[in-house]
């Protein structure tokens, strides 16, 4: 929520609001008239605007810039269903994907999952340790870590529970709640290998404990192979320090892998030759299959996609028959780059290939686009991505056959929107 707390601001805002409604009313009238042959003049054009006839705000009124006050609905949202007893210390907030433009999530909209609240760490007192089966254990301050060469990479981060509420059928009529447990950012930090090269990791140390310093001491076991491949210690996102919700001042980044493994408020890494059996890799974050046995250490987020426009929050109710419109969405895979995305208009019977647009990066969101002539008829709109290792999103039925409906984690089957005759968009599933 945008804060407008000072009394003087409130006054300005209120007067502008009255003005806004008056103008909106005028605009609506003119919009209706525009459909007739004699179109009325738009007052927004024929009259001077308030903002064009008054002095604007002082330029540095907000030393840290804020979104336009009109954008106050573009926010993360929560639900008590994805929490314990409505307690928002161990819960999740979801990114408003329906308002997401491009592939970079603004820092204030990055989805957030915590297990014991958002820790507020004093960077001056922050310490990070690497020890265990290595020759030279090490303690680093934040300043020390920033002395190593930095790299910046764009990667998505996704909670493996993304879409977990929908295993048994559609529940939320909202893009934000169907797929909003993910975001994508330019991360800056140091490759762990750069630090570890000097520390002499024992070749027998095939596992590494990664542990946070928040109240839950969030911890996981990671194969050393990943730590030495593309793992990073990150201290910045989108050009500024990590937000507290994202683990300020330091978090682990394991590109393409469960966000839960990318431990926030990082405390230590311990190398060893046995896995640790942490709470979040046993009681939770294990995928129970219909056999009664569960998949553990299920690291990568598999190939996935979702149409973001239209969507339940951004329907096609303002379109007229014959309008040309862009269908677009996001595709991503923890296994590599996105190769291609197909779109179906009939619930998956027939598909056409969409176009990828913008940057196509490894383990990053990738935009897809398809220009469509709206016919005002009902549609079952779906997207299906293929990634660099040629994995293709399964249908709901295919995924159900292997995992069942109680797996909770790693759901990546095809999502379908039902576009109604009036242009409304509803979350549905194609399944038997």
């Amino acid at each position, binding site marked *: 929520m945008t804060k407008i707390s000072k009394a003087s601001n409130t006054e300005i805002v209120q007067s502008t609001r009255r003005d806004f409604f008056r103008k909106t009313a005028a605009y609506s009238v003119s919009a209706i008239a525009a459909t007739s042959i004699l179109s009325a003049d738009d007052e927004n054009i024929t009259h001077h605007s308030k903002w064009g006839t008054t002095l604007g705000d002082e330029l540095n009124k907000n030393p840290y810039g804020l979104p336009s006050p009109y954008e106050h609905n573009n926010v993360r949202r929560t639900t008590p269903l994805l929490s314990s007893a409505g307690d928002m210390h161990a819960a999740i907030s979801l990114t408003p994907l329906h308002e997401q433009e491009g592939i970079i999530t603004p820092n204030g909209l990055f989805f957030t999952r915590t297990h014991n609240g958002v820790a507020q760490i004093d960077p001056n007192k922050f310490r990070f340790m690497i020890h265990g089966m290595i020759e030279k254990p090490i303690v680093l301050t934040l300043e020390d870590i920033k002395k190593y060469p930095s790299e910046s990479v764009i990667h998505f981060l996704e909670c493996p529970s993304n879409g977990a509420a929908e295993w048994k059928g559609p529940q939320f009529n909202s893009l934000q709640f169907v797929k909003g447990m993910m975001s994508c950012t330019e991360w800056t930090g140091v490759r762990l290998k750069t630090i570890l090269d000097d520390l002499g990791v024992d070749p027998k140390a095939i596992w590494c404990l990664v542990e946070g310093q928040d109240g839950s001491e969030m911890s996981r076991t990671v194969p050393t192979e990943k730590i030495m491949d593309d793992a990073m210690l990150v201290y910045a996102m989108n050009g500024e320090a990590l937000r507290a919700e994202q683990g300020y001042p330091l978090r682990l980044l394991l590109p393409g892998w469960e966000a839960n493994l990318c431990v926030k408020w990082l405390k230590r890494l311990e190398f060893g030759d046995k896995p640790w059996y942490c709470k979040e890799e046993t009681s939770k974050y294990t995928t129970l299959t219909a056999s009664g046995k569960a998949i553990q250490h299920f690291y990568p987020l598999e190939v996935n996609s979702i149409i973001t426009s239209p969507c339940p929050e951004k329907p096609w109710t303002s379109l007229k028959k014959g309008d040309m419109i862009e269908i677009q969405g996001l595709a991503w895979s923890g296994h590599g780059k996105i190769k291609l995305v197909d779109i179906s208009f009939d619930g998956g019977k027939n598909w056409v290939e969409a176009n990828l647009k913008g940057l196509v990066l490894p383990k990053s969101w990738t935009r897809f686009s398809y220009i469509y002539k709206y016919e005002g008829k009902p549609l079952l709109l779906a997207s299906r991505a293929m990634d660099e*290792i040629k994995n293709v999103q399964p249908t709901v039925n295919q995924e159900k056959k292997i995992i069942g409906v109680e797996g909770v984690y790693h759901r990546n089957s095809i999502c379908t929107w039902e576009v109604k005759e009036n242009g409304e968009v509803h979350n549905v599933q194609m399944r038997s």
Partner: protein
Amino acid sequence: MFKCDHKFIATSVAALVLGSTPVFASSAKKNALDGGMTYSRDRGMYSVYNINEQDTKGMNHGRTPTANELKAWDTDIMPDGTGLPEGKGSVEEGDEIYEEQCGVCHGDFGAGGVGYPTLSGGSMDSLTNQRTAPGMDAPKRTIGTYWPQASTLIWYIRDAMPYAHPKSLSNDEIYALTAYLLAANEIKVDGKEMDDDFVLSKDNFSKIKMPNEDGFYPNINGKDGVENVRKFFKDGKNYGAVGKRCMKNCKDDNATVMRIGIEMKDVNPAYSTVRDLVPVDNSNAHPGKAGYEANCAVCHATDKMGAPALGSKSDWDKVMEKGTTKVMMNAINGVGSMPPKGGNSDLTEWQMQMIVDYMISNSK
């Protein structure tokens, strides 16, 4: 002269690189542990990113931790017993601590029902339950039916519990609580069920047998643990990567449209895509204020009803003699003429905590 030639060659190569980045992009191979791609770092490139490949050998900006520092942080507890602290505790002692500190969130005997994780109950047979139709029972993932290792339990209790003030329990208390929760789950130690007098310590911890120890795959134990994971990810059928790229007349097991039954609408803030201005700002209000006004003020606004009045230091000093936990429990369960949750059963535990906090902090 030689130097000059060298420079010239370097510049030409640089020009080539700049002019034809895709040709020089680093190679990608499908050989990551998880079945995905790895990207090499060569010729100044990492995938599509330019990188600095200068040698960083010998770079070290840290210092060696002291023995005491290592001891302070190296406190994880592993399945083989590594890291188990000194100390001991009985099932009976655990029962008392549990009732005092844990039951408010995890329910009686860990049976849940208060919204926080359920810790006991259910059967391993339930793990094959699949709720494919309404009204069916869920699989019960509790300590007894699901958790593979007891070390996880004592480690998590020590580091992360009680939820609101983690790391406040003594070693004896964490053994007692672990013993109590294992007993509540009818876990066997050395082949025998645990009675109230059972005392858990470092010495008998390894004799605990968790029923679902073998309920997980791939097998991550032993020196082949990581290789087993690699094998698992080599075959997409193991983890659901079975999608096919069909383009025309694709079959899907007679799939039909399933629409939302009962829509989940309880979201915060409420859905809206309107672009307007917010006239009033309530963001500085205490999170318990609105709940107090709607549910509690009728009795607590004054002392006329016999309830401790908001703002009355003497009333609340008396109440607080019982301790915060008891006050909280009373607010949730009811006390005297006050009904549970002040009569509004829809209030969550969290809302109740906020309301109580609001009332206490405004009565000092």
